[in-house]
């Protein structure tokens, strides 16, 4: 079966029914994904960004056959995820973040040996492939230790090795760098870039915008179960490039009242705050020539402010803008 698309989803939807209580059970239906459409070409690195609970993992679980869609359809390399799950599974790898998902009592080597059997790696190819992957993820020398003694970063490396055992054509990376130290995260990004260069299609979800910006050919931002924006990182940044971005360091705690005052200041489209160490950093998106530094500082009142800088919009600015617009639309809807 040949197709130019590695991943194709059309109006993919998934709802969950929950039940609480025994005597008077209360049933609720939650729409986790509401009509997601994606088209990812072969050899492309596609990012799926979104806040927690946006539907990213549910979308991936439908694409990798662990969940059936309640509506819509999806194909991986031309194979239908609902009707041809075995064909899909032979061609995909799935790496997810976190501490769990490995056999604690087995060594890394035995974990990989077992999954090599499960994923149909040819017996004579198993050990060379395992040692190649252990070398690639930097676990050589530790492969005979039980996984229960591994750090989170080491576990994550083992997850990645497992996902690559059978040389999948399409790789789903669900927050692979979560809990990984900066050096290992950089190594992971290099590995992902190498995979894509070798022709593997990668669908990546991450909360690290710099990672997505550096790696992804295209990105879809998903919020409340629907795709809110899609494009290259530059195209997404262009959505907020028409705004000036001001960052103000504040040495006192910022309250909701200050943020409200800022947002009501003429020309200011958006104001957010992030605590960095002992200071708060206020990020203000303002229409050019509409909000002066003075008016921004005036809104912060008697707070002790430090450095004020103007910078180019980043992917994170674009992401926050899209997600914030989605939240506003949701609350108005």
């Amino acid at each position, binding site marked *: 079966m040949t197709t130019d698309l590695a991943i194709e989803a059309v109006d993919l939807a*998934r709802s*969950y*029914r929950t039940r609480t209580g025994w005597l008077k059970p209360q049933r609720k239906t939650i729409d986790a994904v509401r009509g997601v459409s994606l088209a990812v070409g072969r050899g492309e690195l596609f990012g799926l960004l979104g806040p927690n609970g946006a539907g990213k*993992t549910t979308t991936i*679980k439908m694409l*990798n*056959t*662990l*969940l*059936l869609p309640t509506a819509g359809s999806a194909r991986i390399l031309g194979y239908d995820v609902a009707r041809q799950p*075995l064909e899909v*599974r*032979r061609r*995909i790898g*799935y790496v*997810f973040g*976190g501490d*769990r*998902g*490995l*056999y*604690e*009592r*087995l060594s890394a080597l*035995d*974990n990989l*040996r*077992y*999954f090599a*059997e*499960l*994923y*149909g790696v*040819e*017996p*004579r190819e198993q050990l060379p492939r395992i040692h190649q992957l252990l070398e690639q993820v930097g676990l050589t020398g530790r492969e005979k230790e039980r996984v229960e003694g591994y750090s989170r970063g080491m576990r994550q490396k083992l997850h990645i090795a*497992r996902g690559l055992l059978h040389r999948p054509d399409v790789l789903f990376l669900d927050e692979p760098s979560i809990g990984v130290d900066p050096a290992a995260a950089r190594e992971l990004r290099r590995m992902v870039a190498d995979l894509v260069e070798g022709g593997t299609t990668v669908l990546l979800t991450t909360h690290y915008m710099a990672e997505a910006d550096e790696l992804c050919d295209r990105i879809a931002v998903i919020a409340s179960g629907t795709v809110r924006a899609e494009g290259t990182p530059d195209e997404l940044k262009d959505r907020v490039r028409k705004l000036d971005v001001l960052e103000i360091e504040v040495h006192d705690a910022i309250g909701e009242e200050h943020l409200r005052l800022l947002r009501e200041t003429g020309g200011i489209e958006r104001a957010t705050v992030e605590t960095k160490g002992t200071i708060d950093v206020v990020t203000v998106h303002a229409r050019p020539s509409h909000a002066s530094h003075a008016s921004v500082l005036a809104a912060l009142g008697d707070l002790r402010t430090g450095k004020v800088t103007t910078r180019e919009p980043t992917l994170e600015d674009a992401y926050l803008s899209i997600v914030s617009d989605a939240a506003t639309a949701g609350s108005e809807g």
Partner: protein
Amino acid sequence: MTALTRALRLTFHGGGLSYRALFNWTTPPMFIGTLLVSPLFQIFFFVHVGRTLGVADDRFYLLGNAVLATSVPCVYGGIMAVANERRYGTLGAVLLSPRSRGLIWGGRVLPYILNGFVVMVFMMGAGSLALGLPLPASALLGLAQVFVVAAASCALFGLALGALAVRIRDVFVISNAAFTLLILFSGANLPPAAMPHWMSAIGSFLPLSHAITALRALFDGGSTAGIWPSLGGEAAVALGWAAVAYGLLRFFEWRSRANAALDVM
């Protein structure tokens, strides 16, 4: 490499790795304490009860409880073979395998059958020595046959219960009840003549009752061939539970995809 060789590798090599990964009692203290010492004390307990109340002789309780001892590794092990996948969060990674479910899950039962066999051999050996009961060489072949079929039947029963773990979180509550059920209905500690008909009927659908009957017939002077009808009954029970286990595992796997009924990752 042929498809058959690959299937055998998944069954035996994969089964062995999964045993080490998922069976909680592989460490020497746990293995000896839980699988060997505890069931041996159970034999002594029932022998003492039998002597005190005059219900049956020592051999009756030794044979019954030696076979019953296989239920510890086999029933609990069969359950752990599935339930511990949830504990480690590995079930999703297993379900993403494109390979035959029959081979994956079937292979997992094999190490528990071997484990159950070893436990029964130990019980018979240690129990006979301690109680001063003879273990005739002529009975050994029949004894081995009984042990293999009993362990297989019990492990497949455990796997069927383990299948429930794909759907139910606290499946070990069921395993405790199942273990007690076997004590009660297998005939290990109650002479069949003392059991009401309905209890015998239930017992005949559970593992071990036919195997215990076969073993007692063997030690009552029966020939190896003479116990085959009872062993055939035990094998039929084993096949029945194998079918139940396979059906439940496939059904719950499908349900987990359709209803998102399982926290697979």
